[in-house]
């Protein structure tokens, strides 16, 4: 793997999955591809974290899964965002932005 790639920061994976699924329902591989693609290959989703995360989110009721057929006519498990998931995404996005802003402020601080 390219050295410029970063593993998805722990704790943000859930947020990224929710965001990816808010665009359209897709299967697990699709989620990983989409995150990698949007982040221009900066963010690599480790399969080892992806599927447990999907299970966890499903368990919390933020996403729902259903078996469907893929573009290559194969059985695949499709995930979609639920309405509680959408609310959760909203909330997590806001708190992430607040966090980023705070980090930025700190980083840009000048000596007094």
């Amino acid at each position, binding site marked *: *793997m390219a050295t410029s790639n970063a593993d998805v920061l722990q704790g943000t994976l859930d947020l990224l999955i929710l965001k990816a699924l808010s665009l359209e329902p897709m299967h*697990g591989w699709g989620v990983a591809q989409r995150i990698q693609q949007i982040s221009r290959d900066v963010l690599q989703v480790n*399969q080892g974290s992806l*599927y447990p995360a999907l*299970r966890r989110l499903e*368990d919390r*009721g933020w996403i729902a899964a259903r078996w469907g057929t*893929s573009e290559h006519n194969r*059985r695949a*498990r499709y995930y979609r965002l639920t309405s509680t998931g959408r609310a959760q995404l909203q909330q997590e996005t806001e708190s992430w932005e607040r966090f980023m802003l705070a980090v930025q402020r700190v980083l840009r601080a000048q000596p007094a």
Partner: protein
Amino acid sequence: MSLRTRIATRWRALFARRREDQELEEELRFHVDMEVAARLRAGMTPAAARRTTLRDFGGLERYKEECRDARGISLLDAGAADLRGALRALRKSPAFTGVVVLTLALGIGATTAIFTVVNAVLLRPLAYADPGRLVMVWENDRNSGTTREPASVPDYFDFRARSHVFSHLAALQPRALSFTPPAPGADAVQLSAAAVTKDFLATVGIAPRLGRGFRPDEDVPGAPAVALISERLWHSRFASAPDIIGRRIRLGDSSYSVLGVLPDRIELPEMPPGFGSLQQDVDVWLPLAATPVSSPRERHDVIVVARLRAGVAPAAAQREMAALAATLEVQYPRENRARGVFVESLPASLVRGIRPALAALLAASALVLLIACANAANLLLARTVAHRREVAVRLALGAGMRRLAQQLFAESFLLSVAAAALGIGIAALGLRALLALAPRNIPRLADVSMDPRVLGVALGIAVLVSMTFGLLPLFLARTLDVQDALRAGSGRSGSAAPAQQRFRNGLVVAEIALSVVLVIGAGLLIRSVWSLRGVDPGFQSDRLLRVQYQLPASRYPQSMAAFPHFPELSGFHRELIRRVEAIPGVVSASLSANGPLEAGFTNSFVIVGREAEAEHQAEIYIRSVSPSYFPTAGVALRRGRLLSDQDDATAPAVLLINESGARRYFPDGNAVGQQLRFWGQARRIVGVVADEKFEGPGAETPPAVYPPLWQVPFATVSLLVRTHADPMAVLPQVRAAVRNLDPQVALYGVTTMDEALSQSIGKQRFTMRLLGAFALLALVLAMIGVHGTLSYAVTQRSREMGIRMALGAQRGAVRRLIVRQGMRLSLLGIAAGLLGALAATRLLRTLLYGLTSTDLVTYAVVTSVIAIVSALASFLPARHATRIDPAITLRTE
């Protein structure tokens, strides 16, 4: 997520794991395939694409595990894994597992067996409606110091008319009746019967299974003969015939019309001594047909059962009845002199005799369980400590205390469940042995069986207790100093943490203390039974047969006007003695209204010339006997002469007095020649005989007189037959002799007097044997504990021992070191146990004979036995310690 889907998810997670795994696998495979396809598109060769994908992907199993964790199902899975792990670990050390399981199983088995009996005998509800309100209304006698005596019929009617605390009062009189079964040619059998007043069934709250109870007009003198029969009799003798109601059955010499069938479980308390042999098995119920004048007030021949009015406490009833008794005493100064009333709860009265023994046994079995648990805890602890380096490493690496707890929990769970399973088997076997050993007079014993509910409760408690002990090591692990444990080098030879060693020692001390309590209890009982066995019963019990019979009044009239001239009665009695004495192998035969070990009845009396003393005299036992009684039973003459056949109904009234009576009433030794008056007749004392035991070997023989049966005739008698050889061998000829004289007369109460004597201390023997077994078990378990703890200590200190030996320590010194450690534990345990025994053996007080619960000899013997046994138990590990090869132990570091 809605509750429904949440539950569905949980359900899937928990129980549809296999499907869940398959789905995950399929999903992961899809992912891999997509990735491979993507890499192919990027220009890789198919083989390289697949290889690199799989490499990057890692193991499938890992994901499955992680996904399951994410699902929150880890706990259950981990539980299953723990159980599997525990099972593996236990299998790896079969000796350890075997000892722990067996130890616990013995404790659980003992407790369960005893609890099954206690439940059936003491706890199971009575068949009576609202039994808590049922009471016995006994009379008592201040002069004799008796507490439970029958009432008189007139007293009963006064109780009914003048008391306000009872909603119902019924009187009951035990009877024995011969019954001729309907089958042709069948021998008559003796049945236990009870005559009751019309409101008996309403009082106890029992409804007939079939038919009806007595109507008031059937409980009057001269009413047609009617009877109720037991379900047992209905099944066994009438093949459960549905048309039994209205049939006529033959009882004694009369025919009775059957009104109804009563359930079997009408339980009545043990009757006062000499008041019929009524036990639990009343088969026929008749109307008493009593009136306030049908029987004199001085004749105490009914027992009174009453139902308390709602809201009336037994104590309030006692107060009112005591006041009523005092009024009656004033009103009838002659008949009711010194008479009081004792109101006793009926359920308590039923089990009064056996409760102390069962309570003691239940406590003893609980102690055995505790000792077993302490032992198991000790063994588990030894293992935990042996693994403590492993535990410490895991704790240091961040393994949760919870995981450790789970593993211990899994182990002790498996051990307790295995022990419980084995314990059920032990309980079943134990119960069988226990029932075989039990004396026959324990009420409800026939109903004892392994009730699944009881079994559940007993096992639940047992498993709970043993698991609690199994988790004890956990609390110690908390005290484990991780750094210390890691630093200590190899866990095997490092010395155990002092806190743990202290705790383990504490367990052993407790085990020894508890077993000391049990062994002392058993010792006290063993000594009591020995003393009871050694008691001279005052008669010769060997080669002596007893059978009983009753002559029906219809063919053997006993009109009070003719007393004591009952020619038919005494004709039968005399002829039977003659015929039995003619049987080859018979030495002699005799008749008595009450034989050896039968208490008989008491009557008030007056010493002629000392009438004033009668006011405060206890009643005296009257034991009417044929003259051959004394040689046959082997009761010795002390002074004067024995009775002879000339002392018949026409001769001057005479009697013998026993030594106890002679001492009490004629302390100057001048009994012979004095006259006693009872039943309107002065009777001259012609001799003094030895005291024979008749209230059991443990009781002092009370004053008694022996009038000749021909002068004080009885229709219900015991026939004693002294034989040259086995007394049972002549029984068929004795039966034939009775049948030839009167085929309607049934024999009952057949026993050898050796057997009767041994039965009379049955309760003590039963308790002694069980307690002895428990004590032995406790001792063995405690010694396993001592041995185990010391062996472990030796292993722990093998390095130290090796160094000592290498430096030239003598074997003897090393041995002493270990034995001393063991003896310190056992002496502490013995000291604690002696204190415990002083308190606990009070439970046994009523079962002891000839010694007190603080008997010095027992305490001394038990102390030395336990000290010696624990010295032996310590010696084995000590010898092991001396065999340690310094070269080997030092090298293993």
